[in-house]
């Protein structure tokens, strides 16, 4: 099971945080601080995994943004790495050539996409199309009017 997902920039600025287990604010801050310092301090050509307390941290850098996923010890690291990658693909498909700015200015969208992909620390849906369709359906409402018949129509 996944415990948390953090997105932060090369300067260590947090861009997105998602916690799958209840933690106090202090614990969260500690984790964020530890993650940014540990991940940013990694040497090039080290592996993408870190041990941290009883968790494993899987991180990957895409352009200027670090994606950092905390999972339980028995999880499969390579799979977690692909979870990150799939999320990036989803963001990319939605924003079209996604960059850090997209996520900064539309972080709520990034959260919506994440919620369709992962839920409660588990992978919910792995089909890229399904997730995108789902987000777009809801988005239609945002940009359009809120006629209820229209939504029902959308879902068929």
């Amino acid at each position, binding site marked *: 099971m996944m415990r948390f997902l953090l997105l932060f920039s090369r300067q260590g600025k*947090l861009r997105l*945080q998602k916690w799958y287990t*209840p*933690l106090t604010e202090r614990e969260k801050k500690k984790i*964020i601080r530890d993650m940014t310092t540990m991940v940013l301090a990694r*040497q090039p050509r*080290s*592996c*993408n*995994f*870190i*041990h941290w307390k*009883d968790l494993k941290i899987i991180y990957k850098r895409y352009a200027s943004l670090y994606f950092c996923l905390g999972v339980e010890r028995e999880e*499969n*690291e*390579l*799979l977690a*790495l*692909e979870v990150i990658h*799939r999320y990036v693909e989803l963001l990319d*498909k*939605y*924003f*079209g050539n996604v960059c850090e700015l*997209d996520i*900064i*200015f*539309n*972080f*709520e*969208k990034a959260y*919506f996409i994440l*919620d369709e992909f992962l*839920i*409660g620390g*588990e*992978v*919910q849906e*792995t*089909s*890229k199309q*399904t997730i*995108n*369709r*789902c987000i*777009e*359906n*809801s*988005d*239609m*409402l*945002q*940009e359009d009017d*809120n006629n*209820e018949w229209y*939504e*029902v*129509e959308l*879902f*068929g």
Partner: protein
Amino acid sequence: MSDVVEKTLTALPSLLSLDSQTVATKLSSTSKLGALIRGITELRSKHEEEKLIQRELASLKDQVSSPHTSMRQMKEAMVRAIYCEMLGYEASFSYIHAIKLAQQGSILDKRVGYLAVCLFLKENHELLLLLVNTVLKDLQSTNLIEVCMALTVVSQMFPKDMIPAILPLVEEKLNHSKEIIRRKAVLALYKFYVMAPNQVQHIHNKFRKALCDKDPGVMFASLHIYLQMIKDNPEGYKDLTGSFVTILKQVVSGKLPMDFNYHTVPAPWLQIQLLRILSILGKNDKHSSEIMYEVLDESLKRAEINHNITYAILYECVKCIYTIYPNSDLHEKAAKCIGNFVISSKINLKYLGLKALTFVIQQDPKLALQHQMTIIECLDHPDILIKRETLELLFRITNAQNVTVIVEKMLEFLHQSKDDYTTIDLVGKVAEIAEKYAPENKWFIETMNTVFSLGGDMIQADIPNSFLKLLSEGFDNEEENKKLRLFAVDSYVSLLEGETRKLPQRFLQVIAWVLGEYSHLRTDLDPAKVMTLLSKLLDIRQISSETKTWVLMAMTKLCSGEASISKAQSVCEDYRSSSDTVLRQRAHELQLLSQDPALRGQLLPLHRGSETLEVDFSLSFLDAFVSEALAAGAAPYKPPHQRHEELAQEKALSLEPYELSLPINMSSYSVSGRQSPTLMSGSSGLSGDSTELSAKGSSATLKLEGVKRVWGKEGYLSKEDPVEEVAQVETLSPLSSPNQPPGAGRTLSNAAAPSETPEPQQEKLQLASSLFVGLSLQTSVCLMGQPEPTAQRFRRKAKTPNSSSSALPERVSVAPVPTSSVDNMLSHDPLEATSMLPEVTHETILPPNTEVNALLIDTANSSPSPSNGVEIPFETSENEIAKTPKHECPVRSLPPDLLGLPHTKITSLCSSQTLDVSACHVEKDDSVSLLIFTSNLSDSDMENIHFSFSTEQLQVSLSSERPLHEILKHSNAVCEYSLTVHAPAIHFQMVGTLSYESSSQSREMEFSYKLPLSSFIRPLVISTEQYGTHWLDFSNDTKQNLALVSEGQDPLTDTLNILKRKLGLHVVEVIGLEGIAACRLAQDQPCLLHCRVNAGTLAVWLRSPVPKLPDCLLYHCQRVLEET
């Protein structure tokens, strides 16, 4: 219709993504959020940022609390609040508005409202209660998006107590026509299952329906639940093995829609989930494992593409193959696969390869030999993580020969590591292997010294404890004991003479204790000198007062002779008026005892044995004192949980939803006696628990008596393998001397080393030979448990007859006769063949090539539906197993004194040609007896019979007067064990081993036995008044609505009667719509049940002083009521 929608939908994204992008950029330039973000990026210092955000928060606060703010503005404000929180500034004023937004906003506002709630609030936040109504409303909405949002929020965070309120609605959604709703409902139920398993027990059948859903997404979601449920109870889902295998087969061969492919690999997440499920199902289960072999082979073959995701699958596959019942062919393939990982140049793969290797060598240590050079390279890898993982691997292959090298490597790592968590973990491992394989006293003490100084004060408490225990209890050889103690004393004296300031407190405590206890062994050491050394410790500033008490205690033991006494006196002067009471007491003791040598000799005899102390946990010797105090008007003692409860009662808010509420009718209980100290006092129970815990703590360390090799290339290695190997060990034994120069071992270790090698290579080879030295001999080593009797120096004295260490020497004398029980099952058991048959036909029914949908429906038919015939093969095989022994062993009757008592059917546990073991259990009044019937079918007598059991939740003790030792040929014997519950569970699983000698050969047989909690439940006859007092005392409770049974006039009485009849509850009283009942676990641990009829269901509330008991009992109540 749906086609049309599909088309419009596929056309939409292109339109939309363009649209959303332009909107996004537009928004960012004008919106307040955009302004805020830009404002922050322009700032130079943290201080400026703080000021800006505080200003922002103030304006936000105004905005959200203004009544004129529209929902649209509110939504925008909420997004900014989320942003501020992400930067680490609290915006708690907005929480309530987030809930309001979710409640009142239009759909798009709602979405942001829900998102904000999820990000702001935690599972147990009190404001979440306000969300329940909104969620309820949205779940019932006709708008699918609203339903989706509600389900999403529910599966992220929902107050546990409120689950019953929405459960029926979520359950209903399992039948929804849209797959996305079904999928989200399944995931919400999964979350509920994790939070409160017994709440969703009644819908297990519906999970099966989800597993057969025609939409792969829904099926995938249901696997989360199944993985969890199977983890909790593997036995309950064996019948699904076939279905999981079929699904995996279809996935692997690419029958799912392309949509589920990930980089051309078909549904990897699904595959991995299935592999995990299969590995649990196949563990120790030959029959289930056999169904899997084919598909596992297929998975290994298919995963060819060079991509991370295929390696992820391969890794799970290898793990699965090595977890389930072994198959030599698969093992070989899996081993090859690991090889590819380990030699990979990609560092991530290398890491995973090491992990896989670590997992696999626990079963097959020889594999490490193939990769020695890679492992050596990894030891020097620049990435610390790789190093760490390599040490983990080495830890698993440690034996008496390589322990010094491995410990050296670990300590080297410890010197560099700065991470506390790693240090603690590794220090524990060093201590463990050092104790287990120490080659000599000097090395052991020195290693432990390093452990203590490196581990510092974070070290696990059981390391110093078990070290001291080892020193004090000693082992079988008295001479060795003395030597070890002497060495410790010498080493500590010299340590204290050096720099002591840096030594951690824990280490100082150990030193003080050892010196106090054993420095008299060194006769040429003046006690006064030790006293001086110890008293110097007291002057160190950093020393904690806890350590000071240890030091004072040590001085108390030491002070004999003129000089010591005067030293003691001066120390007493310093501490007699210390503000620390414990310290003050120790100082007084020291003063008194130093003046009275006779008393001291009596109190602290020099040669104390390790006799166990009798401890009276109930503190009964204080009874007189307590009653005196009570008589003098003191307040009676209340256990902490009761105090806590009373406090809670004063200010508690009723959290029950109204229609489901379960008001306690307080007036019907008498509250008067609730504080009586004579009632089951929680205190003695509690202290009892804590001792059990500490006892467990000390024994919890891994016992890996030599890495045992159970599986080999040819499959299961029967324990009595070739004799020649045994001989070999003896001839090679000089090698096992740890002081042997590493070069000498090399010639033996591996022939793979090329004859001419450059210098650095040479070094590595040397290292390899010293690291892997034990492994080349591993076959023989592990077969006998121990290579030579002296290998493990510090073998603890055997305490219990069934402890593993005492059983080991028997195994050494094993001779090579192929009669292991497993072998027999393989070759002779006719059952295996018959029970396999139905499975095979069942496999062929499935059409090999079908469309996806049809295929998944096929899965549905093939097993999960409850009325289907697929469960039959499993059942028949079980029945047959039960039948067969009847032909062979005729007489099995209960002993006369147990005849009248309720007992279960006698079932067969394991049998071979020569032996049959069956068992049943008898429910006695205050305990449960397990009767084991052993029939000797062979022509020779069985001797030295010994049963041992391993179970965590039960305590097993022999209750026959004469333990069973031998069974003559062709005769039977009964052995009676009494079982008591240690920790309640729904079912208790016991794994037992029967060892015996027959025609002077030792053999072993394993079996398992399962019994439900209900066997331990007895009625508890109490009055309503007593019930009332107990009810408030008990802190563990659980509530749930159960189905009412109506046979006659009064459903409540009927239902209670069923519980009484089937579970043996005592019905205390029925008043109108409420009823109370009581029961106890066999050894007097009570559980109370309160129930109330409420809108056609029975609201049940269980309470007990024992954790988990209410939950487990509730499960059985539910089962019983469902059955009728």
